[in-house]
Structures are given as C-alpha cells and as structure tokens.
C-alpha cells in the first residue's frame, strides 16, 4: 500500500513546517490529489491516522480534494476532461495531447495550525498567509 509512504511524507513535511514556525498543533491538512495520481483517498486517510500518531500532527483532520484530469491540444486550443480511464487524444482532431493541464497533483494545499499563541500574535500583527 503506497498510501502509507505518502501519509508518512505528508506528516514529515507538516512536522518540519510546524517546527520551523513553532506551532504546537495542527487542526487540518488539505491535500490536492489528482485523478491520475494513482492514490486512493480512503486508503490515504486510514494510513494518515496511523502515521500521525505521537506527532505534532496527531488529531489533525485530513481533507482530500480530488483534482480532475484535463489535457490540452495546442493546435485546436481545446482543453478537455480526460475522464477515467483517461483519453489523451484530442476529441477534436485525434492528435496526442500536448500535455496534462491538471490531474497528477499530489500536494499539500493548506495547513491550519491549532495554536492559540500564534493566533494572538496574528491578531497583533496580521500574517500574509492567513486565510
């Protein structure tokens, strides 16, 4: 199950970021997962629960956002939803797509720190990343 390796990678990256920011907890992590990334969201959620035990990430909510696969044909200037299984041939001219526009993402989109101290500091001095 490669989702365990991915879950460990997510926890590692967020832990590193937490250490550098002095955060004491994480309330949620939002992931972008492309339709063509070959990741099963349920399996990832299960592995995440195990991977975050005894870390600063423990208790955080994992939110997975599926990004649909889209491809582009340059001559036709067409962008289409490739579907699953994907069709990477242009529906207009039948030529090979120039490339994927989306669908292979595997990214941490956003982390919400659960940190009262940080929130107080934010109140005095707004931080640009704040949402």
């Amino acid at each position, binding site marked *: *199950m*490669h989702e365990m*390796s*991915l879950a460990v*990678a*997510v926890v*590692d*990256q*967020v832990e590193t*970021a937490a250490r550098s*920011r002095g955060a004491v907890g994480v*309330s949620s992590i939002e*992931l972008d997962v492309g339709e*063509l*990334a*070959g*990741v099963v969201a349920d399996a990832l959620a299960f592995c995440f629960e195990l991977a975050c035990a005894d870390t600063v990430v423990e208790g955080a909510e994992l939110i997975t956002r599926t990004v649909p696969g*889209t*491809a*582009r044909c*340059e001559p036709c200037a067409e*962008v289409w939803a490739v579907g*699953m*299984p*994907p*069709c*990477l*041939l242009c529906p207009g001219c039948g*030529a*090979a*797509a*120039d*490339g*994927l*526009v*989306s669908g*292979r993402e*595997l*990214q*941490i*989109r*956003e*982390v*919400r*720190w*659960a*940190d*009262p101290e*940080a*929130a107080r500091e*934010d109140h005095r001095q707004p*931080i640009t*990343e*704040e*949402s």
Partner: protein
Amino acid sequence: MCRAVDLQRAVLAKNEAAAQILRTELTARGTTVVNLLSSPGSGKTALLERELRLAGERGVAAAALTADLATENDARRLARSGAPVKQVLTDGLCHLEADMVARHLHDWLPESTRLLFVENVGNLVCPAGYDLGESLRVVLASVTEGEDKPLKYPTAFGLAQLVIVTKTDMAEAAEFDEAAFRAHVEQVNPGVEVLLSSVRDGRGAGALLDRALAAAGGNRVHTPVMARAGA
C-alpha cells in the same frame, strides 16, 4: 484559534529530490538506470535474464537490482546470466523508492556498470508514482493479462517510455488482440513504442537492451503526455 499556511509542497518532493541526485550521480559515472514495472508473473525476470545474457555476449557491462517482498529466487535466476545481481527485500513494501535504490548501490555496483536494470516489485499501482532516478521507464504486459491492462492501470502505462508485450508465443492461445492492446496504450500514452517479445521463441531478443543502450547514449526517449505539463 487557527491560521492557515499555504505550503504547496509536492508530497513526493523528497523522493523526487533523491531520484534527481541519484540520476545525476550515476549519469556522471556513466551508468544509466532502466526501471522495469509490471504485474506479478508477466515475465520481467525471464526477459531480464535474457537481456543480461545478451549484454554479456556483447560486452556491455550491465547489472540488475531486483525487488520482491520475499525470497531471493529472482536474484538467483538473474545471476545465471553472469551479470552482477542484488536482491532487495522490501519487507512488505509494494514499491521501490529512490533512497532504497541508492542505499543498495552503495559498495555493490561496479564502477564500470553501463546499464543498471531495476526490476521493481510486481505491481502496476504503487511503483507508478516513484521516480527511481531512471532514464528509461519500461512497462511490461503479458498476452495472458488482457488487452485492457493499459486502461485499468493508466498511471503505470501512461508514464512508460517503452511498453513491451511478453509471452507472445502464447498470443493465439490467449486470444490476445494486439490491435486492441495497442489502441488502449495509445489512448493513455500517445506515441509510446510497443515492442513484442517472447523469451521462449526468441522474438524481440535484444530489443530492450538496444533501447536501454540508446537511452544511455543520450538518444532522446519518449516523453509521455502524462509527464508533460499542459501548454
């Protein structure tokens, strides 16, 4: 009580960084990595055994790293070719990662090695997302597996730089529809080369070795659509 920080980091960034370092180091010493992916039983080991033997006959220094969850059977088989071979036991892990490959090369791979074949764990799902520092990624499918394998495992087939159909001596018995298979490959990976091979009757002998040497020689290899960012 919370603040949000946009990290926008690729989850696999660590593996990709390790793979890039490995590729740079090995390329600098003249070693090219070929990553072989397929489902279990599709004939990776048999094909590799033949290609390693041919490499030996042609005086090409080739080696193989073969990965399985258990047993050293494949390493024993491949070693009969005379090439340096090492077994990786993954302890249950379903795929190889770049740092695992790098660890195993340490103190083992002869400096003179021109081609390093990495036989991934038999699995068409998990290995697909992991760059192992290869310069050529090959996906195999045997004629008994069904023509729709490329559609069922689009990421594995979609990221291949070469597709090899194995066990073609059994194509008729398996009622393998070559045209349908090729059409399915084309749908997920337009333009990729599909080679036909049989270890039993010798079909396609040396073809993998030739493509690997071409990649090692700096010849341009196929870039799958799935690996290209949209224009």
